């Protein structure tokens, strides 16, 4: 049991640290500033081109085949350099990799990993949120193609996306989980309409909704077989719950570092209650880092995902919301902060217990899949 760096890991850390000194774009966070997106693609390319992205993915798809714990080093160094977190694409790659055939892998995964092609995920709908299998978007076969009609919502990064990993119902007569298939849909075509949604903190480029009207997709762009959509969706969402996959530990560590700097400048401005919120943010974000180390180490046993992802998601949520409360403490002593960053960070943190499966859904899964409690 060793939390320390091996010689190879230490060398990697040093190389990364040296690179970050000259290559940190110092972008604002995507959760608090729309400007992040103007530089995000360049950041992804830079990380990838320098060999610091997709560390644990196979070489064939553009990765480096390193042990998963290298992502912990990446997250720590990005945070401590004040650099943006690594782009979160692993959950898409996992889903496509698990369900798709070789042709799909070769055509799409390298572009996701290199960041040359931008992706969004078309799962949720206005009437299919927690109950995702209730989705109504239809894909109807027409020769070598399918024709897609439907409405997707809570689509992160839809305004950036070149491609959408879309779930649609291909068999309306099958039981609701079984009639769903997954497609790769070109976002740049007639019939696709993207509209941003303004979040409670005012940012507009994180979140969107997309309508598909008579949109055509080749049958060969189906991921897996007809009816495999649910399997793919469950793979994607289980990885989407894992902070090790998302790199969010870096986001929280960076925010906590900044908050600690502000408090250290003049601690007398803070009340005991505010200091307590800051202290819990320190504790929670450190907990999450250690937890991610534990979970990524477990992958060395060949475990990739399972119900423990729900535990991770709940711990990640507790961390983000504790950091949010610390940010709120800073807001009150720093009300003139020009960008209102801390209030935006706090407000954004409320979404973490909803997105990627609500905290209540995660608790259901922990209770039934891990604790073995009966279902009603």
């Amino acid at each position, binding site marked *: 049991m060793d*939390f320390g760096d091996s010689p190879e890991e230490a060398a990697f850390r040093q190389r990364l640290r040296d690179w970050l000194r000259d290559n940190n774009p110092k972008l604002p966070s995507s959760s608090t500033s729309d400007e992040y997106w103007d530089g995000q693609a360049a950041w992804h390319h830079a990380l990838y081109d320098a060999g610091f992205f997709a560390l644990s993915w196979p070489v064939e798809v553009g990765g480096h085949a390193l*042990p998963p714990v290298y992502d912990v080093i990446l997250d720590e160094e990005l945070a401590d350099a004040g650099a943006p977190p690594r782009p979160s694409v692993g959950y898409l790659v996992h889903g496509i990799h698990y369900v798709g055939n070789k042709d799909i892998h070769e055509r799409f995964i390298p572009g996701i990993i290199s960041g040359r092609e931008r992706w969004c995920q078309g799962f949720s709908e206005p009437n299919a949120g927690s109950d995702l299998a209730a989705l109504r978007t239809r894909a109807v076969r027409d020769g070598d193609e399918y024709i897609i009609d439907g409405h997707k919502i809570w689509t992160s990064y839809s305004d950036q996306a070149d491609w959408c990993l879309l779930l649609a119902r291909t068999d309306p007569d099958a039981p609701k989980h079984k009639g769903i298939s997954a497609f790769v849909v070109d976002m740049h075509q007639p019939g696709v309409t993207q509209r941003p949604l303004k979040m409670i903190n005012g940012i507009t480029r994180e979140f969107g909704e997309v309508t598909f009207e008579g949109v055509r997709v080749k049958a060969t762009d189906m991921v897996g077989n007809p009816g495999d959509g649910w399997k793919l969706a469950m793979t994607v969402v289980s990885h989407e719950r894992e902070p090790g996959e998302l790199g969010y530990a870096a986001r929280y560590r960076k925010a906590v570092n900044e908050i600690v700097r502000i408090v250290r400048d003049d601690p007398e401005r803070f009340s005991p209650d505010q*200091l307590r919120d800051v202290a819990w943010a320190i504790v929670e974000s450190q*907990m999450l880092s250690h937890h991610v180390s*534990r979970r990524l180490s477990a992958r060395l046993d060949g475990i990739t995902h399972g119900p423990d992802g729900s535990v991770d998601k709940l711990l990640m949520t507790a961390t983000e919301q504790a950091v949010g409360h610390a940010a709120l403490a800073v807001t009150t002593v720093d009300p003139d902060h020009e960008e209102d960053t801390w209030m935006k960070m706090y407000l954004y943190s409320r979404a973490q217990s909803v997105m990627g499966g609500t905290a209540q859904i995660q*608790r259901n899964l922990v209770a039934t899949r891990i*604790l073995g409690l009966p279902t009603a």
Partner: protein
Amino acid sequence: MDVRLTREQKALRDSASAVVEALAPRTVADLQDAERAAKLDAAVAATGWRELRSADDDDQPLASGVEAAIVAEELGRGVADVSFIGPLLAEDLRRRAGAPSSSSGAETVALTPTLDTVADAAEPSATAIDAAQATAALLARTRGDDIDLVSAPLPGTQTRNDLTRPVARPDLGAVTAVSDAGPLSADDFTAWSALAVTLTCADLVGVMRGAVTLATEYAKVREQYGHQIGSYQAVQHLLADAHVAIEGSASVMLHAAWAVDALPAEEALASARLAKAYCSRAARMACETVIQVHGGIGNTWEAMPHVFLRRALHSTDLFGGTGASLEAVLAHRIGDGHGLR
């Protein structure tokens, strides 16, 4: 980095678990069974776990903080009424002072009356912890910049809040020097405190695991409105939160256990204090949840949940609870003197 337990560490966990399964109390009535408790004590003595931190031939501990934490967690899981942390910490002090192992094997440590740190012989009173079968307790005597290790006899034990680990009031009028013990530095005590705080965290993780397992099994069999109560989301979510708190606690505790021997003393103690803040908050929540899930029966003396809660509260108090640990976290990152009060 590879934070999986090694094969040897897993084997140690399994042996500790086997002792707990065979001999730890399963009912409150079992706590009165002196024959069982004596067998448990003999089983633990036979394993040498209390000597994990004794000196090897190079004056290094026989095992790391991780092994000590593995045993502490398993004993906590079974609310084992046997001494472990106290004697192990006494041996760790002896090793640091260059003194030989305790000849009697019946030695623990004495803390201040608030239980937050090692006792000083100049103070009017002290509390020896984990005092079952112990006849003496180690404590400190300050002499300039140095700290000497001294020993005080224990006249007899008393059970306070924790029904599984009695305390004792050392006779501070009869303090004697520890043979062949050299002076200890402040740094020695920092490193020793890191181990001490970490072991209380490991005990808390174990107590939570044992308690939440008990409540989960109960929720699978207790029926109301014609269904098992564990099928209701209101009950499921309570237990899910407790389970999540255990996993977060295990992650911070494991880092602290590794840090005991791998990081400089100040950093090791910082990791331990952070872990203690997290684990002690989690443990009170989890153990209170376990009483709630048990309903009326959970509020009776004969049911086990209060044994877990009481042990958790005692381990929380040992070497600083939630508030003191949180202040230490803040002091480490922000600087001293900005209290939370």
